[in-house]
């Protein structure tokens, strides 16, 4: 075969390669050229029968042809393969604008009362307070008498108590009107020094815009031999600062009266109202948030503690109320409505676990 014939074969094969429209056609070209019985392979086989002087040149020429065809095949093969992939991928196009499910984590919520209770717990745990609990259905003794509210005390009228039927022994169970009976239970069970908080449900026979027959309180109690009013002030200041997450909270301590503490105080915090928003730590308006005082000697006596030796303070504040203040929730009644719109809006992500290290609400 002459050199021009080789050139023409090369041109023919390269054209066939270029013209292959898919991987199958390309394979046919490859087999036709480089396969066992292919035309290039046939030329190689002829080499053996050629005279040595021709063999060298012809061999070089055929090898060059083989390399060129193989390279062209390789290039075309890649070209066709990526075209095929592109076509397949094009077929696989999805409407990625379709909404996807974010999964249960995006749906679930923690109720503000639970969240705020966790926040409060976090703060007081840091100050060495543990969490005490007591039942909702209480005795008259724990709810009133032991707290220095004897049966005829006018303060009982302020409590709007829910009662149950009288028991055969003449006592009358009631729904606790405050978390203070947990003080009594704790002091009867454990010996000072004591530092506890007691969150829980409390009940008053009262219902309007700002009152619900059930709400949440948290009680604080410290009993040892030297804790005084100054410590109470410090604890409350630290608590308010940490809870409201502001550098400083203006606080006003007003003398008041509770039968179970003496001296007794009510505490107001300063706030500003900007539009409908309440800002703690600014402004010059006052809002009452809690009642507190030094535990009354009669209460200590009621739990067999000697008031000459032991003393301490107690405080009680409304969890729902401070939750409303901190997170700007307007209506107390909505707390207990189970309304998904409200719960999803004001509720918290389950992963938003309050810690002091990370910041309570961050």
């Amino acid at each position: 075969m002459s050199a021009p014939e080789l050139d023409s074969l090369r041109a023919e094969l390269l054209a066939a390669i270029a013209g292959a429209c898919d991987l199958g056609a390309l394979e046919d070209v490859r087999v036709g050229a480089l396969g066992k019985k292919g035309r290039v392979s046939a030329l190689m086989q002829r080499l053996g029968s050629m005279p040595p002087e021709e063999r060298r040149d012809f061999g070089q020429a055929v090898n060059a042809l083989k390399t060129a065809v193989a390279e062209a095949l390789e290039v075309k093969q890649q070209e066709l393969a990526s075209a095929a992939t592109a076509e397949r991928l094009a077929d696989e196009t999805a409407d990625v604008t379709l909404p996807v499910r974010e999964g249960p984590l995006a749906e679930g919520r923690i109720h503000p009362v639970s969240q705020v209770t966790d926040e409060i717990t976090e703060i007081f745990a840091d100050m060495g307070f543990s969490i005490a609990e007591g039942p909702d259905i209480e005795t008259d003794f724990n709810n009133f008498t032991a707290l220095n509210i004897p049966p005829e005390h006018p303060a009982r009228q302020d409590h709007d108590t829910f009662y149950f039927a009288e028991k055969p022994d003449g006592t009358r169970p009631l729904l606790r009107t405050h978390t203070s009976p947990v003080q009594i239970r704790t002091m009867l069970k454990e010996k000072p020094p004591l530092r506890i908080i007691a969150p829980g449900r409390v009940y008053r026979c009262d219902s309007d815009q700002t009152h619900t027959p059930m709400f949440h309180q948290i009680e604080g109690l410290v009993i040892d031999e030297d804790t005084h009013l100054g410590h109470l002030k410090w604890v409350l200041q630290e608590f308010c600062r940490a809870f409201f997450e502001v550098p400083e909270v203006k606080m006003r301590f007003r003398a008041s009266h509770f039968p179970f503490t003496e001296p007794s105080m009510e505490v107001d915090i300063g706030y500003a109202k900007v539009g409908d928003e309440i800002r703690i730590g600014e402004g010059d308006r006052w809002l009452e948030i809690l009642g507190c005082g030094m535990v009354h000697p009669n209460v200590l006596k009621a739990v067999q503690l000697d008031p000459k030796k032991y003393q301490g303070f107690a405080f009680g504040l409304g969890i729902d109320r401070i939750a409303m203040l901190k997170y700007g929730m307007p209506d107390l009644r909505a707390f207990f409505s189970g309304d998904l719109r409200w719960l999803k809006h004001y509720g918290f992500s389950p992963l938003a676990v309050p810690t002091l290290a990370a910041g309570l609400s961050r």
Partner: protein
Amino acid sequence: MKFTLSWLKEHLDTEASVDEIADTLTRIGLEIEDVFDPATALKTFRVAEVVNAKKHPDADKLQVLEVDTGKERLQVVCGAPNARVGLRGVFAPVGAYVPGIDLTLTKVKIRGVESNGMMASERELELSDEHSGIIELSSKTKVGSSAAKALGLDDPVFAIAITPNRPDCLGVRGVARDLAAAGLGKLKKLPGKPVKGGFDNPVAIKLEFPKEAKDACPIFAGRLVRDVTNAKSPDWLQRRLKAIGLRPINALVDITNYISFDRGRPLHVYDADKLSGAIRARLGKKGEKFVALDGKAYAVDETMCVIADDARVLGLGGVIGGEDTGCTEETTNVFIESAYFDPKRTAQTGRTLNIQSDARFRFERGVDSEFVEPGLELATHMVTEFCGGAPSKITIAGKTPKPTSAFKFDMALIGRLSGLSLPYSEIRRRLTALGITLEGKANVLKASPPPWRPDITGAVDLVEEVVRLIGVDHVPATPLARMAGVAAPVLTGLQARQKRVRRLLATRGLVEAVTWSFLPLDVAKLFGGDQPELTLANPISTELSQMRPSLLPGLITAAKRNRDRGFSDGALFELGQAYRGAEPTDQYVAASGVRFGNSALDGAGRHWSGETPAADWTAVKADAVAALAALGFDQSKLMIAREAPAWFHPGRSAVLKLGPKVTLGVFGELHPDILATLEADAPMAAFELFLDNVPPAKSKGTAKSALEALDLQPVRRDFAFLVDGDVDAGNVVRAAASADRSLISAVGVFDVFTGKGVPEGKKSLAIEVTLQPRNKTLTDAEIDAVAEKVVAAVAKATGGKLRG
């Protein structure tokens, strides 16, 4: 408790401003509820003089006045017949709001004549109903000066909240004393002068109590005043009563009301001509009745202290007087009562009969026991001054109750309890200003409280007095000693587990709700909770009358309300207390959830990616089991028993148990009848876990058991069993797992099938058994041996046969 500034100043010499007084009252525990200055509303109203008056050209009854307002002369059209030259009255300028006609004045033309403001009547200022003419002020009032002042309305009204321990501050004098002690002025001395009686009191007073009730009314003083004229009380007194919201009635009644608020000393006046015989304070008798001043009839009983005469019950001592013996304008002979009634009995009587009165409010808190006679003298003084008449001598029955006994007071207690360090002289000064007598020289004193402070009975009460007068603001904040080192965990096991379950359930897409602890009785009954000991005696409504036996009814009704609002798919949970009985140990903590509509772990509602399954037992079983797993509960110990309570679908529910006795929880689809009764639509499925019953996770230190990651590949074999339709998959799985505990590491169910190829009444259950070789690769023979054991075990336990 209300009073005006001028009233306070009758008792307190002070230059303090209204704001200073208000702030101080709040600080010392007499919390300001409101300070109202009536002058604010009348700020632009001036005293003006009519300098010219002529007839209106176009109206017979109108005049055109020229009015001197002190600043300018204005033309005003006026219809009042008494408008005339020289009259000084109250002028309301253009721009002023006139409360009585609810109008802000503008410049108008009345029948063509311009009018610039108005001359006001009393009704227009809401001072009275008087509207026959415009107000006529004295000719001495200064033209152009404040009308409010001229009308005596420049007297701010304070409203304060009085805590139950402070009966002394239910009189203005008590408030003044507190302010003086707080350093805001000086308490004026007002020595009462006895009024000499001209004749013996003809009305006998008898205290007729049995021995055990002698304290009901230990002292009763009275006297008669003859020939009084009971007309209106003087303007100043009427004005004060009106300012604090009391309606003036007649002089005699007004005087008792005034002294009640001025001194905290309730009195009663009787029309003596309507009394028959002696006045008797005694216990009531069954069947006795009287009509009280509020117009209502009350039946008394033997626990109540009544005031009677020879014929009948007249009133209730310390609570309310009777209608027929009250004083009217016709009264000419008045009997004045000043007595002391026992606080407890007064409170109890008031509560029993549901009577609220100013007298009860004071007596039940404890009035000044030594002001019985002075109060009577003060009343006599005012009666004779306003109504004339001749007073009798005073009759006193009984004697003043014993004062609170003196007690030891160590002044060091103030520092110990409050952290304040005060000089003893200051402590003494403050307490003395409150009327407390201190005897002794060193720091340990003998303290005697005054009779108007029944609340002071011990040393700690004096600490409170000093602290409140000094102000808690002066107490230095003192850091509580911190525990040494890093704070230790404080939650109990159950508390920590509640926290964990709450967050776990929320991560599963359930939304936490807080629902009422009480339910309607009929709803509670549906859930097995109608015990009478859990029924409220005084519920706020029947909707909230029975303590809940379970959290489910509250959640189901909340779910229903959400569906009614158009939110048809979702999931709610609650973690809280429920009640099996009234004892503390009957209260338990549950974690419960309700899924409704189309709701499962992946989400709720419709979605293009595929139908969300309707809330069914599988979703809530997953919730319950996941919660138990989060608590570290060993799942292999979990037993599932088909014994869920009646509010669940009997075939699609179960109880989760630990052994035969301990119930950990329950789950399932809710019974359609229960849902129908609650008017809630299916689908709804629920779970309830009893957290107190879940055993704490066993922990031995913090180290976890070593990981067993064997190099030998596990071998999996599938088996399809044909079992009876009612055979539980759980039994098949348990039987298969028990076939070779050392080799079988897991058994899963991958297919449940009934239908074509499966005989009627049977089902095909396909399980995958995983064998984990431990020492060497299993031979085929070994694997076949285990497989045979699996088939045998399943056959034995359930009668299942391997499908051919």
